[in-house]
């Protein structure tokens, strides 16, 4: 009826993204939760496992698992808030009336991705240093971190939208998100193990392909289904 006045997807999603970043910067609720959780787990892992208590052949596997456990549980701790806080604070209705649903999802996804990258930038160097975790294939390792984070952020953001109106949000989020996140986690862990031992990118290309496929499928499904989830 007056479609010309609707903003483009990127203009509106940028507004949502910047609003979420500003809100997060001023309250720092999610950032603090994620970073404190990550730091606590890092310290525990450092004390319990340490750099020297594992045999050299076990280190790549155990360290890969531990690294992704830290990232995974950090994501589970903070990423659900992106939609939950809109419902809890009573701002969701204003957002529903004002923004096209895909713009809301894209803006929230970018905000969660930024948060996850901040946590990763904090966790990974500390983890590598504390555990003396040597990476032979840094290109593969960075690719896995980026793609793994995109997958985690996509799945967590969409799941957060689903559970935002539920009464038992925390339980619902875990029940829905964990099965959804297992495939990329397994791929990321196995790929990281390869990156720790092989300098050749081609050795871990299958895991990169797996994560690209997963990210594509989950993100596409999220955009296709979000309208029904958000407006019901």
């Amino acid at each position, binding site marked *: *009826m*007056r479609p010309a*006045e*609707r*903003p*483009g997807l990127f*203009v*509106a999603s940028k*507004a*949502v993204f910047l*609003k979420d970043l*500003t*809100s997060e910067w*001023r*309250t720092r609720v999610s950032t603090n939760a994620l970073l404190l959780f990550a730091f606590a787990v890092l310290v525990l892992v450092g004390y319990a496992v340490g750099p020297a208590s594992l045999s050299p052949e076990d280190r790549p596997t155990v360290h890969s698992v531990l690294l992704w456990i830290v990232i995974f549980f950090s994501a589970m701790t903070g990423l659900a808030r992106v939609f939950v806080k809109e419902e809890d*604070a*009573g*701002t969701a*209705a*204003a*957002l*529903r*009336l*004002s*923004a096209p649903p895909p*713009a809301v999802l894209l803006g929230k996804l970018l905000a969660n991705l930024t948060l996850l990258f901040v946590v990763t930038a904090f966790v990974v160097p500390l983890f590598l240093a504390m555990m003396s975790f040597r990476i032979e294939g840094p290109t593969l390792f960075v690719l896995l971190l980026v793609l793994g984070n995109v997958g985690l952020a996509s799945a967590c953001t969409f799941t957060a939208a689903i559970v935002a109106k539920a009464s038992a949000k925390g339980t619902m989020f875990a029940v829905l998100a964990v099965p959804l996140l297992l495939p990329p986690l397994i791929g990321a862990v196995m790929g990281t193990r390869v990156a720790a031992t092989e300098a050749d990118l081609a050795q871990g290309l299958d895991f990169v392909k797996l994560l690209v496929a997963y990210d594509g499928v989950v993100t596409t499904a999220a955009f296709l289904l979000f309208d029904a989830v958000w*407006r*019901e």
Partner: protein
Amino acid sequence: MQLLAENLTRSFGNRRIVGPLDISVGPGRVLAVAGQNGSGKTTLVRTLAGLLRPSTGHVWLVRDGVRTAPRDASWAIGWVAPDLSLYGELTAAENLLFFVRLHGRPALPGWADERIAAVGLDPKRIAAHPIRALSTGQRQRVKLAFATLHEPPVLFLDEPSSNLDDAGRAVVEAVVRDQRARGLCVVASNDPGDLALADERITL
């Protein structure tokens, strides 16, 4: 633009809250929805605004003979309600600028201050304060600015005068007066002053 509801009901579980109702509000008209606490005024307004799906029946926004469901024409709707909140950690101006960007409207320098002044607040005085630091009445005025920032042809005001002083009530009157020139308005309230702004009334 016309607001049309046909055989409208809204239930939660087996409990019918609203309807069945037939409503028609034409351009330049103001409809009051009155009723005791718990009578379903807010549910009716949220259903008419497309924030709740009707259990039966339909709600349409009609322009030039074309019917559109409210949820597909959210650009056309302004809404104020007690359960509406703006972003508490942002200032009033930041909230208004955020929402006007979402509506795809340009915000020239000073635009937000003008909108804030239009609802009787001093933009300079509240500029440094996030919404959560404002009084309830000040927040209500910012909500009125939010609801009208995109000049919607359909405006829903649910308890618009709650927490407002006499000057604030005058702002509500001005908002409704301006809305008559722009489109139509639905006011849900128990306040005699709010109800007196309307041309017609339904009581739930």
